[in-house]
């Protein structure tokens, strides 16, 4: 912002249109330059109000404030998805060529799958060793999936007595799983 004082007999203050304009204020530069000719009183007031541009849409403080009032908008549209465990975004992952933590693999679901498929020559499924702890969990999970499928078929065929037996099996398995902390 720059300003200069001048004496002008013809010009009246742009703000009050009464007093003589004694101060010239120009703000911005290039394409966005604004100029005002004001009296001393109105000029002082304008510093306090920060009149700046007639259209105030680019006021960054206002923008941030409005965003913080709409957290949903902030999360879904303005900010890229972040891993809750380590704070990585897909951009940081791509930049580093590394995931930030093991949870990133699930946080960035399809994008992670894409990256993996690209570096692993289109392979996408692990077929090797499974840790002992995970082995028990996976076994229970597979059993449950199988039983639930069976249950659905039995219900559809209206064989309710057998369905009740399978349902109890599922319950027992789920409870055992809970006990193991699965």
């Amino acid at each position, binding site marked *: 912002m720059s300003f200069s004082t001048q004496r002008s007999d013809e010009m009246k203050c742009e703000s009050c249109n009464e007093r003589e304009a004694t101060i010239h204020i120009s703000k911005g530069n290039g394409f966005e330059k604004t100029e005002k000719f004001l009296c001393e009183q109105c000029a002082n007031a304008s510093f306090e109000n920060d009149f700046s541009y007639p259209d105030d849409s680019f006021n960054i403080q206002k923008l941030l404030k409005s965003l913080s009032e709409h957290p949903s908008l902030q999360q879904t549209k303005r900010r890229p998805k972040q891993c809750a465990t380590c704070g990585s975004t897909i951009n940081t992952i791509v930049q580093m060529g*590394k*995931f930030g933590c093991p949870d990133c*693999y699930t946080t960035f679901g399809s994008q992670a799958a894409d990256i993996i498929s690209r570096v692993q020559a289109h392979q996408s499924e*692990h077929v090797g060793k499974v840790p002992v702890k995970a082995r028990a969990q996976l076994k229970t999970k597979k059993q449950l999936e199988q039983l639930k499928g069976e249950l659905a078929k039995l219900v559809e065929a209206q064989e309710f007595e057998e369905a009740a037996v399978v349902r109890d099996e599922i319950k027992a398995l789920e409870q055992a799983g809970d006990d193991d902390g699965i």
Partner: protein
Amino acid sequence: MKSRRWNRQVMMMGYDHISPWMQESEELPVEMSARVRLARNVSHLPFPYMMKGNDAIAPVLEKLEKTLTGYRRVEMSGLQFEDKALLVEKHLVSPLFTKQGLLSYISEDESVSIMVNEEDHLRIQTMGVGLPMMDLYRKADAIDDMLESEVDYAFDEKYGYLTACPTNVGTGLRASVMLHLPALTFGSRIQPLSANLSRFGFTLRGIYGEGSVPLGHIYQLSNQLTLGQTEEEIINNLDELKERIVEEEMEMRSWLESEHLLEVKDSVYRSYGLLKHAYRMPLKEAAKCLSDLKLGTDLNLIELEGFQFQKWIQLIQPAFIKMRLNEKDIEITSLEHAVEEERAALMRQLLGGE
């Protein structure tokens, strides 16, 4: 004048010699040492490069140490640059590890090293010479089981073992074997061979891994893909490819012998002369000359008592040489010259020259 005492720590720990596992090994014509490493991470913990401080990994280490008996704990922060370089030259830790690693657990015979906070939380590495690759894997696998009983690994049903870099996800397994391929190099066969290997998900590169320059015609063959194959498949495929490359190298050697015997003999004896009589020896030249001697002994063109290619190749590396200079007073500006002089002196001594 400044006295250099770089390697106090590693010397005190006894890492100033060739590793016992290598000392005890027999040398083969083409195949050199082999390594298997498993990349493992702890669940719900940021990967090392994202960690703020080491507090988060400390409880994990406490648990691990319950099972790691007979391992020496080597902390990176306690080591100076040259100490770290020596561990790299012995392949006990990776170059990356010397920059950001926390600590390493090293077995007594130095055939096992577990790096903490390299690119991944844990990297289990086993090494050997002339052993079936599967034996090395089984050894790493057993250590893995042992550690897993104490730590919750980051494992995903679909992607397997989760790693910082997606190039290691799945098995987390990288198996590699060093091969001495002078005849394939002379025959300009390395480039086409390397291009073919990459189509099968394998790669051929310099001895210190990614981006390193081949030294003394030694190359490292390793698997590139870690997902979609079982550990056994990866190891078996690597073994098979290794056998094929060894066969090709041997065929090329026969061709050299029948078609270019004089040239081969000439380079073997030139190199012998240089190593026995030179007073300055840059690393590359020394490695090249040793490679020639190895080819010469393999083809029975020269007989050298006590010649051990793999061990000598390690002894000429910069950190090993600088360790020999340890107690001598050398000005920093003339360090490179001093190293070259010392390397030449070592070679003369080993080959019985003046």
